[in-house]
């Protein structure tokens, strides 16, 4: 008899996803799939718009990482203008970009993952949440909010209070930072860094408690991709793309990310609306790769800031030079928060951050432009084609969560095989399956371009296709 288990979690904003576990006659997991079951054409919607509007429009794709879309879109716009933006504009863009990295990673760690990590994967679901964390660790919970607030303060200082600041524009940014703003942001910086360091120290003490999860939460060989500096260091705003293999070997280096189609392909599967990007020379699925914090620390030789570099050395001592377990996305995220804050401090310390030359003006000088940046969840590509008037004729967005699609599927399968043994799936097992996906911090609104009021569901299916069990988690 075949059996199938499906997990279907979704919310109104972030698309419709479902996990299906196919069991064999012995009740073991034969196959597991993470489906996205709704798709909407956001790229199509952008056609007919002026490319100057694209940063503000694409930033609205996502309520969690709008700044990443702003950056990639504005960089595509820079390419269409064929300009090099002023140095002060790049500093300010980097500042905002890193602020969002801190803010987004803090949301992932403190509010989505800390209930599992601090209270345990088997804790009762009614208390395994941020409110449960507040009960037990009130100061930590406040720290998470303060970190997010510091990131938000930087974003709002630069871009204004609107949720989708239109301050980042093709050619640079629309206005400089004032000395008063700089002083205010500098004043909040020490506490933010201290909070990030304390959280990382706390997490390191927790790692031994989660040895089993570290072993089975998406622990498999794959390629890893991410931007690096010219020196090979950790990079989020610009740089060249590096791809390494599971042994740390550099498969490709100094790739021009704005010509991604030359080395990245996009496969499709009939059971998912997400595309499955892969490294073209190795083909699909061998060429599938992971992106995001774990991948960035795997491809980079170093971080480039003192505290993050020390943390990276310790992390590699524990987990290896190339870390394969997706559980360590959590560690990588916290190291990146520290790195982001150190870089923010460096940027704010530089008096040139308040320079007034922040925008290059030009007419459209090209018909095609690509902008690439490292979003919190991984490499983000915006690719536009325009006509003579600068009206968009084609858009392709290659999103981090899509690039991690195959890896998330493999993670689900690995966890399910480890924990599902033919007995009914318990809430704790369901939570571990979800947690394996959560480690990637997927943002389904970007990947699926979908909205809709939908629940989250897991289904268990037998070899004959009969539904054995449904676990539903209503998000609202």
């Amino acid at each position: 008899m075949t059996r199938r288990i499906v997990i279907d979690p979704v919310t109104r904003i972030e698309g419709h996803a479902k996990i299906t576990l196919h069991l064999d006659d012995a009740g073991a997991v034969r196959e597991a799939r993470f489906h996205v079951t709704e798709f909407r054409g956001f790229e199509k919607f952008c056609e007919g718009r002026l490319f100057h509007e694209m940063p503000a429009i694409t930033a609205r794709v996502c309520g969690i990482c709008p700044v990443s879309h702003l950056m990639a879109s504005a960089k595509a716009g820079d390419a269409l203008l064929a300009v090099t933006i002023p140095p002060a504009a790049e500093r300010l863009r980097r500042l905002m970009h890193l602020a969002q990295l801190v803010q987004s990673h803090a949301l992932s760690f403190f509010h989505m993952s800390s209930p599992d990590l601090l209270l345990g994967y088997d804790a009762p679901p009614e208390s395994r949440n941020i409110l449960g964390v507040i009960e037990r660790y009130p100061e930590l919970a406040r720290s998470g909010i303060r970190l997010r607030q510091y990131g938000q303060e930087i974003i709002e200082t630069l871009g204004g209070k609107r949720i989708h600041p239109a301050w980042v524009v093709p050619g640079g940014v629309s206005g400089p930072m004032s000395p008063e703003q700089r002083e205010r942001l500098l004043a909040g910086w020490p506490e933010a860094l201290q909070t990030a360091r304390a959280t990382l120290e706390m997490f390191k003490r927790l790692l031994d408690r989660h040895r089993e999860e570290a072993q089975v939460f998406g622990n498999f060989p794959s390629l890893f991709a991410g931007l690096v500096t010219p020196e090979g260091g950790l990079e989020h705003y610009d740089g060249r793309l590096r791809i390494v293999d599971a042994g740390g070997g550099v498969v490709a280096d100094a790739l021009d990310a704005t010509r991604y189609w030359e080395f990245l392909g996009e496969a499709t599967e009939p059971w998912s609306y997400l595309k499955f990007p892969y490294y073209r020379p190795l083909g699909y699925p061998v060429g599938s790769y992971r992106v995001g914090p774990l991948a960035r620390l795997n491809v980079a030789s170093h971080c480039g800031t003192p505290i993050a570099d020390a943390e990276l050395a310790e992390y590699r001592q524990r987990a290896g030079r190339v870390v394969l377990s997706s559980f360590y996305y959590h560690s990588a995220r916290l190291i990146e928060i520290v790195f982001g804050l150190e870089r923010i401090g460096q940027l704010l310390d530089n008096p040139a951050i308040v320079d007034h030359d922040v925008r290059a003006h030009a007419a459209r000088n090209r018909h095609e432009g690509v902008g690439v940046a490292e979003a919190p969840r991984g490499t983000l590509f915006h690719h536009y084609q325009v006509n003579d008037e600068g009206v968009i004729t084609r858009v392709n967005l290659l999103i981090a969560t899509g690039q991690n699609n195959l890896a998330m599927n493999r993670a689900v399968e690995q966890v399910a095989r480890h924990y599902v043994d033919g007995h009914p799936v318990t809430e704790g097992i369901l939570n571990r399956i979800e947690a394996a996906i959560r480690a990637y911090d997927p943002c389904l609104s970007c990947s699926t371009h979908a909205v809709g009021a939908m629940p989250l569901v897991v289904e268990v299916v037998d070899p004959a296709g009969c539904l054995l069990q449904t676990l539903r988690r209503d998000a609202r």
Partner: protein
Amino acid sequence: MRTLVIGIGNPLAGDDGAGPAVAERLEDTPGVIVRMSHQLIPELAEDVAAADRVVFVDAARGGRLTVSRVSGAAGAHDASSLTHVLAAETILALSHRLYGRVPTAYLVRVPGSDFRPGTNLSASVHRLIPKAVAAVKRLLLANTAYVR
């Protein structure tokens, strides 16, 4: 009395923009602070704690235009999901537990029908926006605020 109106939703996703559309029309109302957000996020708890009264305005799939009271008591149930969305109840509970204050809170739900990408609201939502704004204004007139 400080009233916080939070318009929830994505203005680029058709009727999902109903919440921000209502909130936008209340921006110049005396005593009202307006925030708009794709989704509820934890740091909004601080804004909530600083208010005497909070009105969440959100789109809904189908149904009728409704106004209901929201309490933080049930907020513990939307944890550990795969998404980044928090419920209004959770934001209220966060406000209570982190800052010791919970204002009176209401949820205005505006039923939508077309959530495809686009900046246009459906005709039915267009018709409901003034009614939703009026409903919020009636709440503002009622002297029901309290802080626990």
